[in-house]
């Protein structure tokens, strides 16, 4: 039911685990299924320098989490902000219909982590 690429990210997730002293943190939960994701970023020269995630969720949630960290790393904040759930799904070669909502988590947490960084910077 899942694409090979998703399974690859699910079995060997990239950038997983907690980050010490992140510059920004995003968290999001999926009220549909109850899954939860955290995403941590470090920012340098307006670019995502380091990124990590923690996910309590299904295989699609874990796979999309890992995927988005790979997509966001090295991007400018403006570029990263524009990564949508459709982009993540596309990169993974699609998700089964009942799992389409799972990519919400990844896109939401990335946006929130960047917003968190920007709001902290203002203070």
């Amino acid at each position, binding site marked *: 039911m899942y694409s090979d690429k998703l399974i690859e990210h699910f079995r060997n997730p990239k950038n997983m685990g907690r980050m010490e002293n992140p510059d920004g943190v995003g968290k999001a939960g999926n009220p549909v299924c109850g899954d939860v994701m955290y995403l941590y970023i470090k920012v340098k020269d307006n670019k995502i320098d380091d990124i990590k995630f923690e996910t*309590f969720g299904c295989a699609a949630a874990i796979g999309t989490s890992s995927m988005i960290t790979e997509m966001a790393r090295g991007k400018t904040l403006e570029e990263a902000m524009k990564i949508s759930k459709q982009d993540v799904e596309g990169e993974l070669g699609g998700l089964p219909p009942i799992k389409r909502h799972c990519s919400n988590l990844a896109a939401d947490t990335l946006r929130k982590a960047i917003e968190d960084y920007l709001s902290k910077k203002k203070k």
Partner: protein
Amino acid sequence: MIYMDHAATTPVDERVVKAMLPYLSEKYGNPSSLYGLAQEARKAMEDARAKIAGLINAKPEEIIFTSGGTESDNLALKGVALASKKKHIITSSIEHHAVLKTCEWLEKHGFKVTYLPVDRYGLVKVEDVEKAITKDTALISIMHANNEIGTIEPVEEVGKIAEEHEIYFHTDAVQSVGKIPVDVEKMNINLLSISSHKIYGPKGVGALYIRRGTRIEALQHGGGHERKLRSGTENVSGIVGFGKAAEIARQEMLSETERLSKLRDRLIEGALKIENSWLNGHPTKRLPNNAHLCFKFIEGESLILELDFNGIAAGTGSACSSRSLEPSHVLTAIGLRPEETHGSLRFTLGRSNTDKDVEQVLSVLPGIVERFRAISPFKKDFREYESALLKEHHSSGVD
């Protein structure tokens, strides 16, 4: 592959396949016809009926063949409801969807249904059944053993109460028949559902036991097969296979129950060494082959997929539920919080499983659990769970 999902389905026993084959080729007669070829098919079907009756201490004429457990449950509930002037049904909140969805349908058609709660082990309280009875109660339907957590319900006591109040009693015994003794006389059962594919028979065949004299309406009309209760040319090869499967189950049940209980206990004991894990269902009143476990902070689907990559087939619960995102109604009914229902894993053992299989599962399971816990944001408690889920969520779009 190590197959440990026997509650979902079982492989067809080779002896069953052998018994079926002639009825898929040269013995193709329609049991309703009169010539020899047809009578051969009829005789094989009646042999099967007797074998299935023997497994549950019924009379052959009290067995009606159906297309499986789902149809048997539908026929029992709707058939009795439609034949009765009374409009109330009592069931439990942990029934299989074949019963629950049928009850919901009946509610839409003028019936009232009481869904009894269960305790934390999944047991229905016998007093609750008695208290729920009204003058208008047509039927009590309580499953014999639960398909997810394996709890064995006090059906004999419920049967006694039903008899005292002269109310029909149906039990869904799809998971218990062939694994533990079932005796429709001793248990005061009026109607009982069985499915062939859970006892090493073919899929798409089942039976409903209907005690003689029970008032029931047919749902499927036509040529009047199966004592006018289920029209349609019979699935002869399937029925023959089902009969053979019942015969084998009857012969092997005692020794197999003992063997599987030991494997199950070893599996449970080993798995519970993993931190933050627990057993669901009753510690002793449980099916001999069921080990239903929860692992905190991780999610069942990931576990199942990763076990699959390790050559182990296990389930999270009801096979139907793998198509839905809702937490299991059974785990919710035993009082687990939504986040706790996530990390559930069901091993159901069967004939092919050995000591070695159990040891193999126990050798890979701790590592898999640990790997997913390393990915999870929750390590010690779920304290932040609700806030992450509810307050922080902005765009909860579902598509």
